[in-house]
């Protein structure tokens, strides 16, 4: 088990464009940490710095207490899985997995035992003699994983390993990766742009944007308490309201109406944000505090619910309503923003 520390990492490709800007990250022993963000946010670059493909222009990488910033890739002993799997096309599944062990000058019998063991764990025993092009996507993915794990790496680095699989297989592999990772207790960095995938698999999530980490925390923390507007938008908070603090837990919107929120933002002006699922449509009798009168602009059918786009005195809002009551465009309704669900950023 190893712990990883990234200390003030800067990366720029041509000396001008900064890809990573003073990035700090600490990954605990045996943790699975995801780097989540839109394309171009620097998540893959961060992984490549850890893997050793990129030497940062400044900053250090520590694994445990050992500085590894400039250790060549082939001396790091990190297991890697790429999005494209990058299997060796000229070698069979068995030989692909054996590749790393052969370089470690291991005794033949010992090597064979290890390979058979990992093939068994990854459910690949019957495909040992096949070549990569004879395998399905999910099988290739498992070979890539087996090949990375068999060398008993200090770290496991996964670069969008699931994005080439179809939805169902993705779900299975996700569980599989998590299971293997916990069983072997191996510290893992997982790069993804898919928030659902990321939340379900990670111990901690680092949400990245523009070369910096916007927020680092457990999936629960990030899901329920995004710290910045970017994080909130990225994980599905679609409604943003300009608020001004009037007194403890009370905020005034632009139209003068007052809202209460459970949380405190610590400054006089902030953005209140709430998920479309958390806004409730209420009748006039039920209407207490935090209510707004809204006119429905567009209705979209989502399957389990209807989505309404609303125009209100405090701005445009989006509501998902699964109650079964059906409204149509042009209707005027009352909505409530529960105080506990409003997040201030």
């Amino acid at each position, binding site marked *: 088990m190893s712990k990883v520390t990234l200390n003030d990492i800067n990366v720029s490709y041509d000396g001008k464009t900064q890809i990573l800007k003073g990035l700090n990250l600490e990954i605990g022993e045996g943790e699975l940490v995801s780097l989540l963000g839109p394309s171009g946010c620097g998540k893959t670059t961060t992984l490549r710095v850890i*893997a*050793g*493909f990129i030497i940062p222009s400044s900053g250090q990488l520590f694994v445990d207490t050992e500085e590894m910033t400039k250790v*060549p*890739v*082939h*001396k*790091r*002993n*990190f*297991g*890697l899985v*790429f999005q*494209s799997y*990058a*299997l*060796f*096309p*000229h070698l069979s599944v068995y030989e692909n997995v054996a*590749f*790393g062990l052969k*370089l*470690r000058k291991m005794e033949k019998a010992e090597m064979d035992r290890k390979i058979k063991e990992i093939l068994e764990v990854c459910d690949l025993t019957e495909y040992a003699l096949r070549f990569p092009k004879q395998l399905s996507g999910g099988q290739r993915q498992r070979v890539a994983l087996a*090949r*990375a794990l068999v*060398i008993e790496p200090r770290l496991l680095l996964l670069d969008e390993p699931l994005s080439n699989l179809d939805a169902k297989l993705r779900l299975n592999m996700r569980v599989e990766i998590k299971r293997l990772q916990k069983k072997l207790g191996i510290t893992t960095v997982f790069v993804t742009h898919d928030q659902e995938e990321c939340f379900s698999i990670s111990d901690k999530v680092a949400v990245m944007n523009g070369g910096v980490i916007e927020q680092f925390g457990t999936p629960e923390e990030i899901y329920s308490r995004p710290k910045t507007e970017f994080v909130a938008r990225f994980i599905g908070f679609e409604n943003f309201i300009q608020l001004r603090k009037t007194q403890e837990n009370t905020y005034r919107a632009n139209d003068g109406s007052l809202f209460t929120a459970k949380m405190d933002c610590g400054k006089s002006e902030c953005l209140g944000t709430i998920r479309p699922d958390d806004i409730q449509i209420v009748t006039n009798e039920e209407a207490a505090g935090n209510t707004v009168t809204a006119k429905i602009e567009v209705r979209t059918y989502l399957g389990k619910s209807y989505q309404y786009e609303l125009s209100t005195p405090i701005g445009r809002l989006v509501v998902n309503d699964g109650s079964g009551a059906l409204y149509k465009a042009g209707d005027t309704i009352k909505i409530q923003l529960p105080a506990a669900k409003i997040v201030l950023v």
Partner: protein
Amino acid sequence: MRKNKFLTFYACLVFGFLFLPLAIIAVTAFNTAPTISFPISGFTFKWFANVFATKSFLSGFQLSFMLAIVATLIALLVGVPAAYALSRNSVRGKKLLKSFFLSPTIIPGIVVGYSLYQFIVLKLKLPVMQGLLIGHFLVVLPYVIRVVGSALEQFDFSIEEMAWTLGCGKAQAFFKVVLPNISSGIVAAFMLAFINSFNNIPVSMFLSGPGVRTLPTALMNYIEYFYDPTVSAVSVLLMAATIAIMFVVEKTLGIGALTK
């Protein structure tokens, strides 16, 4: 699919135009008449016997063959690393270098031959064999770089990176992972380079010395003095050899390897 009769006819016409001369040459090789003529007046193998009795053909073939092999091998030794560097590193002026390596295939052979003559023979005064070898090496190098380069570009770079993470140094990864996967490109490059060297006339003409003749120049020389079907017989032998090689390549790699 609907067959287009006109297109079929047109294709036949083009193929006929391409292959008829070859077929006629092949037939004339067996003619008893002492000059190349068609239709033939009788059937004989004597011109084939004459090929093997003509010293300039035998020594020419030997020279051309050796020259093509050695020049191609050197071109591979130089060209494969060059192609690798061009495909993997962001060398400054990469595009310029690529077109530069293509240039010998665009510049007329006679110009290349003449400039090599100026430089190698007149300026450096190198012995004939060395001069020929350098000339042929330079002629075939672009083919190697282009063909191997395109094979490398189709090869996923991340596979190589993966080898590094598993413990391969860069050189080791090249031999263990890259080379086995571009082998068909290398064979294709070898074939193209070999054929180009073997066929080359302009460079050989300028760089040949007294008593040193490649097969194509020996053929040209022969035709100047004799117009008998021996030349046809040589052509038939060369065609047969080419077909045989192509057959082997097709069986082992698939002909696609040459056109990729």
